[in-house]
């Protein structure tokens, strides 16, 4: 039973994959954009930060759910 709970929490932690890929793509595009137009850096980094926060939210939900699985079922 304990190992099943651990596996369930580990599956919930897989949400990190999506956030990682998303933030990676967003950052690479932002670097490209800054290289093309260095004067727009302020606006670009503002948008990047917002996008990263939104993309990161999925990973955070996975973390919260993993923690809930461990605390409630464990």
């Amino acid at each position, binding site marked *: 039973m*304990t190992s099943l709970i651990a596996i369930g929490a580990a599956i919930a932690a897989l949400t990190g994959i999506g956030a990682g890929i998303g933030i990676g793509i967003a950052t690479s595009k932002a670097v490209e954009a800054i290289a093309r137009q260095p004067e727009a850096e302020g606006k670009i980094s503002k948008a990047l*930060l*917002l996008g990263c*926060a939104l993309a*990161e*939210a999925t990973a*955070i*939900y996975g*973390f*919260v759910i993993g*923690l809930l699985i461990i*605390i409630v079922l*464990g």
Partner: protein
Amino acid sequence: MSIKGGSETGNLSSTLMEELENKTVFTIPVFGGIPVAESVVVTWVIMAVLVVLSLILVRNLSVENPSRKQLLLETGISFLQNFFQDILGEEGKRYIPYLMTTVIYIGIANIAGVFGFTPPTKDLNVTIGLAVMSIVLIEYAGFHKRGAKGFLKSFMEPVPIMLPINILEIAIRPTSLCMRLFGNVLGSFVVMKLLEFICPAVLPIPFSLYFDVFDGFIQAYVFVFLTSLFIKEAIE
């Protein structure tokens, strides 16, 4: 909580579970006892510090020869002011003081771990409270701008079929706001506790800079940024 494994893992998980609990500091002995959580007490400390700081910092302000302290203060305040002004525009000016207060409170609450306090935002109840305040402000802003009829009509925009999604948004927005803040702070808290467990001496310091300071400020920024974006959307 029972984990099979070495005594080391059992020890670690029980320590972690102990840290994750929201401790009750004391109980007010009225109405059968009102428990006062640790997050509330830390919030009181933060409030006291902010009140004292704002009393000290605004003393001896002058227009002719501003001191260095006053210049720093003005730079900081006008930075925040301009930041929100850019998002909200002229009409949303009245919501700026609330947003500034929130960002200062969340920022300090998130870095409270550096000073040895438990960050209050680690308590889900605190972040729920902040998110509820945000959604009430957002809906109030829409109501204030459009009036009762326009406010109800705004749920039918852009097309009437969006009505259920727009109503769901009232619940989804604060949930996502509070879960994001709570999850980030709790996540960094857990990682810091694990690091301290493995190596209590030098190792946690650089990680603390990232997880406590950088991530804490980013999350405070994101929270008010999203709130102000939603307000802007409501008053547009």
